[in-house]
């Protein structure tokens, strides 16, 4: 201590018990904030920024991102929890709760004189055992639509109210099932999420096709195209500043005029090639249409040429949409318009434009075998849309996790009850003082069930006793908590299913963070001025 202050007079030092108290208090403060929004009966948080900006959320991950966290410990925990969300898409709130509870339980024993190192050894043993229990609890039921619906609903019903959750559940599961290809890893980027500030959130829906957030830029272009051939290119169709790039200079106005003319013709040639292809595939058939989607710009003169031929042309498409277009319509994205052949074209039964204020949307629908889809979120205002978007992200991740894991686990606190039971049995085998660590770990796990009960207006002890008795009778069958009645239930029969990887990640992340924080015996605030 003296050494550090000798080096830096501004440094502040907190030692042993003080250091631990600082860490534990920070962890529990964070826990206090987040615990009320766990589970389907939790509360919403409305965040009002200094500027009066509103954000309503129930998602722990969003909350942690929005809050201004000053305490270094709290921000360490917040980062671990948001990392949990990045990896698995869920479990942020549980991470914060569990870390807080592990530290609280540890503190009780440390106050009685046990060294933190012994506790962390117990934590490690308990963690290994918990993984064992988790593996035994895996439900190897077929991952079909019904299972996925249950998983998605379990996740979504903690984010939005029931009616909306059912709507979003179908949207999420169907979108993933549509884009899923056999023997290939799932790419969630192929589900586009498009926002439209319009109507109400109940109009949120799945479009089995693409929605682009721009439209044709020429008044004479068709607004609806049926039986459309789709050409996707990344070729500039606008007049460029070649004169500067090429570095040659002109002496007279005529020379400049010539140069401009040559450049113009060069661009027009590109457009003509597209028009030729259109004539080749559509001929004089009025029933067939042609849509050009360009990643680069198209200037008004080129648009004019295309409009005369009845081609619908979109410019500056999103880079990722070029890939999606290929998967959705079967088109091949080209970087040049030389040697165009009909087999690079995609096909869509219907392409139409929808105008909302200054925003245009182009829907590409009625596809043969779409492997890319769009979830169209509607809502009257920004914060409703954001809320639904966060929920959909979580729903999609839950579905993806279930497919990737190939299994699910029973939800509604069933894992925590089972792990607690197993750890209490295991405690008898553990030798030495590490047993206190194991017991602390087992107690800490129950925080999830307790919080679920409290948030539903139930008595936590009462509930716990009921659940443990029931599990003792029925084990190894999982026992969960029915939040409406407060009675034990069978989560599998009630369709409450959680992701395996979320639980696994939760246990390992929490143990690591709690262990690290427990072993801290000195905090040095060197150099930085503490905000008072």
């Amino acid at each position, binding site marked *: 201590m003296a050494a550090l202050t000798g080096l830096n007079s501004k440094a502040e030092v907190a030692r042993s018990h003080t250091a631990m108290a600082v860490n534990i208090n920070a962890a529990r403060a964070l826990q206090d904030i987040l615990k*009320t929004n766990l589970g389907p*009966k939790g*509360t*919403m*948080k*409305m*965040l*009002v*920024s*200094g*500027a*009066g*900006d509103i954000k*309503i959320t*129930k998602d722990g991950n969003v909350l942690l*991102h*929005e809050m*201004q966290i*000053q305490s*270094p410990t709290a921000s360490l925990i917040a980062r671990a929890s948001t990392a949990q969300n990045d990896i698995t898409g869920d479990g942020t709130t549980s991470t914060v709760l569990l870390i807080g509870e592990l530290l609280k339980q540890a503190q009780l024993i440390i106050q009685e004189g046990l060294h933190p190192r012994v506790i962390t050894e117990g934590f490690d043993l308990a963690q290994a055992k918990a993984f064992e229990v988790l593996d035994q609890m895996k439900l190897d039921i077929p991952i079909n639509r019904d299972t996925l619906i249950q998983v998605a609903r379990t996740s979504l019903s903690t984010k*939005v*109210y*029931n009616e*909306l959750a059912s709507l979003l559940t179908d949207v999420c599961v169907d979108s993933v099932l549509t884009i899923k290809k056999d023997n290939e890893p799932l790419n969630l980027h192929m589900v586009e999420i498009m926002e439209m*500030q319009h109507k*109400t*959130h109940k109009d949120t829906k799945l479009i089995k096709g693409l929605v682009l*957030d*721009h439209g044709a*830029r020429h008044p004479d272009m068709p607004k609806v195209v049926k039986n459309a051939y789709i050409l996707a290119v990344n070729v*500039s169709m*606008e*007049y*460029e*500043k*070649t*004169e*500067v*790039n090429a570095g040659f200079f002109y002496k007279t106005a005529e020379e400049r005029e010539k140069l401009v003319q040559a450049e113009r013709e060069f661009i027009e040639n590109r457009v003509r090639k597209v028009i030729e292809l259109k004539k080749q595939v559509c001929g004089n058939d009025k029933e067939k249409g042609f849509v050009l989607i360009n*990643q680069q*710009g198209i*200037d008004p003169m080129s648009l004019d040429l295309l409009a005369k031929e009845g081609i619908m042309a979109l*410019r*500056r498409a*999103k*880079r990722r949409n070029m890939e999606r277009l290929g998967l959705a319509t079967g088109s091949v994205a080209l970087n040049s318009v030389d040697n165009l052949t009909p087999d690079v074209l995609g096909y869509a039964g219907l392409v139409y434009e929808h105008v*909302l*204020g*200054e925003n245009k949307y182009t829907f590409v629908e009625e596809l043969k075998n779409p492997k890319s889809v769009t979830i169209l979120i509607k*809502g*009257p*205002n*920004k914060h*409703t849309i954001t*809320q*639904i978007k966060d*929920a959909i992200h979580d729903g999609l991740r839950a579905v993806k996790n279930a497919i990737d894991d190939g299994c699910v686990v029973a939800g509604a606190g069933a894992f925590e009850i089972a792990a607690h039971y197993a750890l209490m049995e295991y405690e008898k085998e553990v030798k030495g003082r590490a047993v206190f660590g194991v017991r602390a770990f087992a107690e800490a796990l129950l925080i999830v069930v307790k919080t679920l009960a409290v948030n539903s207006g139930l008595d936590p002890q009462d509930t716990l006793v009921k659940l443990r008795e029931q599990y003792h009778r029925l084990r190894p069958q999982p026992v969960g908590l029915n939040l409406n009645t407060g009675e034990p239930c069978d989560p599998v029969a009630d369709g409450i299913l959680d992701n395996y990887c979320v639980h696994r990640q939760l246990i390992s992340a929490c143990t690591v963070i709690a262990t690290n924080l427990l072993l801290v015996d000195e905090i040095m605030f060197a150099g*930085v*001025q503490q*905000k008072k």
Partner: protein
Amino acid sequence: MVKGEVITLQLGSFSNFVASHLWNLQSQCFYYSKDAPFGHEFDHDVYYREGRSFLNKTTFTPRTVLIDLKGSVRNCSWPVDQAYDGPNDDEQKVWDGQVQIHKAEPQAASSKSEELGEVDVRPKKAPLQKNSWAGYLQNKYHPKSVTINNDFDSDNPQQPFGVFNQGETLWRLESENFEDRVRWFAEDCDHLSAFNIMMDTSNGFSGFASSCLDYLDDQFRAKSRVVWSLSDVPANDSAANYRALNTVLAYQKMQELADVVLPLSVSADGLRRHLRSSSLVALDPSPFTGGAALAMHVDSILSSLKLKSEGGCDFVNFLRLMTIPDRKFVVSSMAASPLSKDGRLEDLSPKCDSSKMATSAYAVSRGTETSHAIIVRISNTSAASTFHTMVRHPTKFCQDYFPEISSQSMRSVKGSQLVDGLFVVKNSADVVAHFDDLRRRRVNLGKMHRISLPEGDVTEAIQNVASLRENYLK
């Protein structure tokens, strides 16, 4: 001929301070009646776009995309045009349970103003909030313009956003969103000609801007890129080495991917707190005041590039006049009373002092006609290589913005009024002094533990600055 549209990018907090001043200055040249005091000489559509809100209201907002960090708006109102807000219908809840309300503490008014009883003295006019760029912006932005990142705090003394690689991380987090916004504005343009990039060069945003330049090169290869490389005044001098390294790394990318770079700073070297003494009349080191001074220069140069008349220059021609291959870094100076003493031309580029003869110059005189000979003489160049243009509309000077200016030098100026000025951009070897200053900074990666970059990259960037310097001495 149609003027091409220009998209502005505001990459960083200080850039946003400058830009807010810039848009205020730009919008004071809007006249909605047939006769304007100085004639309708500007084509405002170059930097602004006309839009339509959900309620079918016409809007006119800058064609710009900005990035800043959590908390940068402070307690000012959200800088987005309210015409774009949807109905705030409370019936549309998506949760039927309870709602807890957490309010962030409004930032306390300074205790000094409370002592003086200044709180709510003049309720009719909202006070100018100088601690955030959102506080004095007169016309709000389009909703697509504003990106505020939530992963980094703008004002957290424990984790300052001051290192190049933090900026790169920020780009990874925000790129998809940011790219999409740029693309949205680009899609809206019929003749997109250039990107007008205002960036913070010496703080963490240098990493963000460097990645952003890569993106622009990839997606908008044929569009010109003008970079205003802005250095804020740091809160203290302890991070000068980091600031130098950020600058060096950003310069490497600019040399490669920008068409012209205009370094600007009110501090003497762009790195430390030390303000330039000789030039501008005493400024204070706040980003608000410094930003106001720099914005006068940026505004005048940009205004001269949107003139309707045939004699006016556009972005593409401006580049052709200014750049010589490998000599993309140019020096800026301005003379606008009462900000600069005795009407002398004062340099705004760090470490530059207009002592060397310039190879080419671009001068804008605002308000008054200045003869070519005078411009050539005071900007120290040759007559043949000087392009000079005249903007009839004078620029605006707000006394409120410059509290440090003594009342003596203020005799002619009361409150805010229109002032004349001369604004010059030169391609000259003066900038070598700035490069030399950067090279003198000792970069010891072993000690700068907040930087996590391969040593090779850093060495390469430092060598690049050395070679930049050579280009000017040939």
